[in-house]
C-alpha cells in the first residue's frame, strides 16, 4: 500500500456531541487517534455522508461515530480506496422507479378509461331509488343556478298538453324507473337535460326550434331513453370516480393539473356514443309505439347541429356522428313514419305557448343540440 496520508480532524463518538481533536491517517485501514481515542476502521465498512468539500465526514456503516476533516488529498485517496464510500441504498434504482411508475400510471389510466365505465354500469342498479330522487333534486337546483335561474313555464293550456303527452309516452315506455317529472324553463338554449331520478328539464328554445310536435316528442322520448337506461346517474358516478382516481395518482405536481383537466373533459363530456345511440333507438321505438313520427327526431337533430356550427365541443362530438345518428333513426322509423302525427295542430299550438306567446320564436344566435344532454 502507498504511504499513509494524515490530516487533523474532529472525532465524535456518537454518544455525545463533544468534539475530540484527532489525527486521521489512511493506510490499508483508517486510523483515528487522539487523547483517549483510538479507532481503526476497515476501509470496506466506511461510508461518507454528503458534505460540502473540502469538509469530509466518514464513519463505519451502522455506527453513530463520525470523523470530520477538511483535507482534499486524504478525501480523494479515501474515495479511491473505499469502494462503498458513497453507496446509497437507492443507487441505480432510478430507471427502475421511472419504468414502474410509468407502468402504474398507465394502468390507472386504463382503469379510468375502460374499467370505470364498467364499474359505473354495475354500480347504478345498487343506488336506491330514494337516494336517486334526492340526488336529482339537488342536481336540478344546481343546474338551475348555473343557467341563471330561468323561470318555470306554467301556462295552464300548454302544461295540460305537455302532461297528457308525457303520460302517453310514459304509459308506453318500458323500464322507466318511476314517475317522470318534466319541467319547462324559459331559456335561450335549445336543449333538454335528463337528471338523476328521471327528472327532465326542457329549455324553451327547444320548443321554439321544433317545427312539429313529433320533433319535440322525439327529443322527449330520447330523454326518456336516457332516464330508462339511467344514464345520468351512471355518468355522475363515472365522472366522480374518474376525477377521484386521476387526482389520487397525479398528486400535486406541476403540469399534471393540465392533464387532469383535459382528461376529465375528454372522458366525461356528456354521454358516450353508445349511450346516445341506445337512447335514439329507445326514442324511435317509443314513438312508433304511441303512433308518432319517429323520424322527426332525426330532422331536429340535424337542424340544431347545423345551427351549432363551429361549436367549442365540435372536436369531441363530431358532425359525421350526427349524420350517422340521423340515418340510423330514419332507418329504424321506416318510410311510413313520416305520415304520422302525435298531436293535433291545436294541441301543438298551445304547447308552443307554454312559456307565453313571445317565447315561441327561436333565438337566432343560440346553438346547442338536444340530446347532447346534461353534464350534471
Amino acid at each position: 500500500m502507498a504511504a499513509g496520508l494524515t490530516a487533523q480532524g474532529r472525532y465524535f463518538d456518537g454518544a455525545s456531541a463533544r468534539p475530540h481533536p484527532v489525527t486521521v491517517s489512511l493506510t490499508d485501514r483508517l486510523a483515528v487517534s487522539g487523547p483517549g481515542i483510538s479507532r481503526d476502521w476497515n476501509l470496506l465498512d466506511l461510508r461518507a455522508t454528503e458534505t460540502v468539500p473540502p469538509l469530509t465526514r466518514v464513519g463505519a456503516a451502522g455506527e453513530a461515530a463520525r470523523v470530520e476533516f477538511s483535507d482534499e488529498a486524504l478525501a480523494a485517496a479515501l474515495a479511491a480506496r473505499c469502494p462503498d464510500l458513497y453507496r446509497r441504498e437507492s443507487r441505480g434504482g432510478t430507471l427502475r422507479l421511472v419504468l414502474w411508475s410509468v407502468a402504474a400510471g398507465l394502468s390507472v389510466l386504463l382503469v379510468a378509461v375502460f374499467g370505470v365505465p364498467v364499474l359505473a354500469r354495475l354500480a347504478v342498479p345498487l343506488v336506491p331509488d330514494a337516494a336517486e330522487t334526492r340526488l336529482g333534486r339537488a342536481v336540478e337546483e344546481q343546474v338551475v343556478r348555473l343557467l341563471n335561474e330561468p323561470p318555470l313555464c306554467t301556462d295552464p293550456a300548454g302544461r295540460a298538453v305537455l302532461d297528457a303527452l308525457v303520460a302517453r309516452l310514459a304509459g308506453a315506455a318500458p323500464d322507466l324507473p318511476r314517475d317522470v317529472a318534466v319541467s319547462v324553463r324559459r331559456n335561450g338554449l335549445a336543449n333538454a337535460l335528463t337528471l338523476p331520478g328521471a327528472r327532465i328539464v326542457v329549455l324553451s328554445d327547444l320548443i321554439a326550434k321544433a317545427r312539429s310536435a313529433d320533433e319535440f316528442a322525439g327529443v322527449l322520448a330520447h330523454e326518456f331513453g336516457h332516464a330508462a337506461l339511467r344514464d345520468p346517474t351512471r355518468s355522475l358516478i363515472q365522472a366522480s370516480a374518474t376525477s377521484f382516481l386521476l387526482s389520487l395518482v397525479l398528486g400535486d405536481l406541476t403540469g399534471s393539473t393540465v392533464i387532469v383537466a383535459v382528461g376529465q373533459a375528454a372522458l366525461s363530456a356528456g354521454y358516450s356514443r353508445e349511450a346516445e345511440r341506445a337512447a335514439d333507438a329507445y326514442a324511435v321505438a317509443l314513438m312508433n309505439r304511441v303512433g308518432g313520427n319517429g323520424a322527426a327526431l332525426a330532422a331536429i337533430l340535424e337542424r340544431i347541429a347545423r345551427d351549432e356550427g363551429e361549436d367549442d365541443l365540435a372536436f369531441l362530438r363530431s358532425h359525421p356522428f350526427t349524420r350517422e345518428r340521423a340515418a340510423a333513426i330514419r332507418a329504424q322509423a321506416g318510410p311510413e313514419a313520416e305520415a304520422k302525427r302525435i298531436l293535433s295542430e291545436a294541441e301543438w299550438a298551445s304547447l308552443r305557448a307554454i312559456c307565453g306567446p313571445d317565447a315561441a320564436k327561436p333565438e337566432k344566435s343560440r346553438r346547442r343540440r338536444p340530446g347532447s344532454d346534461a353534464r350534471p
Partner: protein
Amino acid sequence: MDTSPRAPGGRGTAVAFDARLDGLTGIAVKGFLLSLVTFGIYRFWYMTNLRRFFWSRTLVDGSPAEYTGSGKELFLGFLVALAILVPVYVGLFAVSLLSPSLAPFSAPISFLVLFLLGQYALYRGRRYRAMRTLWRGIRLGQDGSGLAYAARAAGWWLLPLLPLGLAFPFMRAGLERSRIRHTLIGVERMGSTARGRTILGPWLLIYAVALLPPLALGLAFLAAADFAPPTDLFVSKGGKGATGINPDYDGTTLGLLLVGFFGALATCLPLALLLVPFYRARETRAFMNAASLGDVRLVSTLRARQFYWPYLVYALSLIGFVALLGLIVALLAFAVRSGAGTGGMSILHLVIVPLYLGGALVFAVLYVRVIQARLWAAVANTTTVSDAEGLGRILAAARGPGSGLQEGLADALDVGGALQIGF
C-alpha cells in the same frame, strides 16, 4: 451571501448555510422532469434529495447536519396515508350523495375533518424529519401526541376567529411552544419561551394596513348616510347580475365615500400581503430567540429585508419571463398571420405546450434556488448559538430511527412542503 462560518463572539458559535448551491439546479431539474414522467411519484425521491442537500449545507459549530430519510419511506408512507384517506373521501362523498339534506353541511364537515387530519399530519411529518436528522451522530426526535397537537391547533384556530383575528400571534406562539418543547436532541429536550406579545406589533401593523382604512371609510360612509344607506345606491348594469353604483350619486359625499371604501378595500389588502414577509421575519426571529436547549440559547439577528430580497428577485424573474413569453407568442402569432398558413394556429398550439412546460421547469428551479435556498440561508446565517461548550454536553439517546411511514399523510393531504425553514 456570507459563506464562511462567522467568527463566534465569545463562547458562542455560528449556524451557517453554505449558499454556493452547486448541484442544486441539477437536483431540481432532474426532480421536476422525472416527477412529470412518473406521474408525480418521483417527488418523494426529489424531496429526499433536496433535504439531503439542504441539511448537509447547514453547519452548526462547523458540523453539518445529516439527513438519513429515503424516498422509499416517504412513498410507503404516502401509500399508507391513501389507505386512510380513501375511505374518508369515499365516506364524505357517500354522505352528500345519499342524503342531499346533509349536502350543504358536507363542505364544512370535510373541511373540519381534513383540517384536523392536516394538523395531525403536520406534526407527524415533523417527527419524521426530526428522527431522520443527525448532528455529530446524534439523532433528533420529537415526542408528544399528534392527536393532542391537532386538538390544540383546532382550539387555537377557533380562538382567533372570536376577537377578529387579534389572537393570531398568540396562536402561533402557543403552537411553536408545543412543537419546540416536544423536540429532542439526543436526550436533551428543547425549550421555548415564545410569547405572542413579542410579535403582536408586526401583526397589528398588517391588521392596521389591511383593515383600518376600509373600516374608517366604511364607518364615515355609514355616518354620512345616517346609518340608513339609500336603497337605490346600487343599480344593475347591463347583463347578468352585474351591479354598479347609481350614477345619481356621482360627486356627492356619499358616492365619494363609497368609492373610497371600495378603493381602500382593493388597495389595502394587496398592501397588507406585501407586509407578510416582514411579519414572517419578525416571527422567525422572535421564535428563534425564544428557543433553548438547557443553558444553550439561540440568538437570531434576522432582518426583514433578508426575507424581502428573495421574493423580489423571484417576482422580477417571473415578470421578466412572462414578458419574454408574451413577446415570443406575439412574434409567432405575427409570423403565422403573415405566413397566412391554415395550419398556423396548430403550430402555435404546438409551441405553447413546450413553452408551458419550460416555464414551469424554470420556475420550479428558481423557486428552489431563490426562495427556498435564500430564505433558508437568511435564517441560518443570522443565527448563533450562545454557548459552544454547552453543545458538547448533548448526549445521544437510545432511541431508534422510528417508523418511516409518518410523513405520508402530510403529502397526501398536501400540507407542509418539502422543506420547512427553521425548526
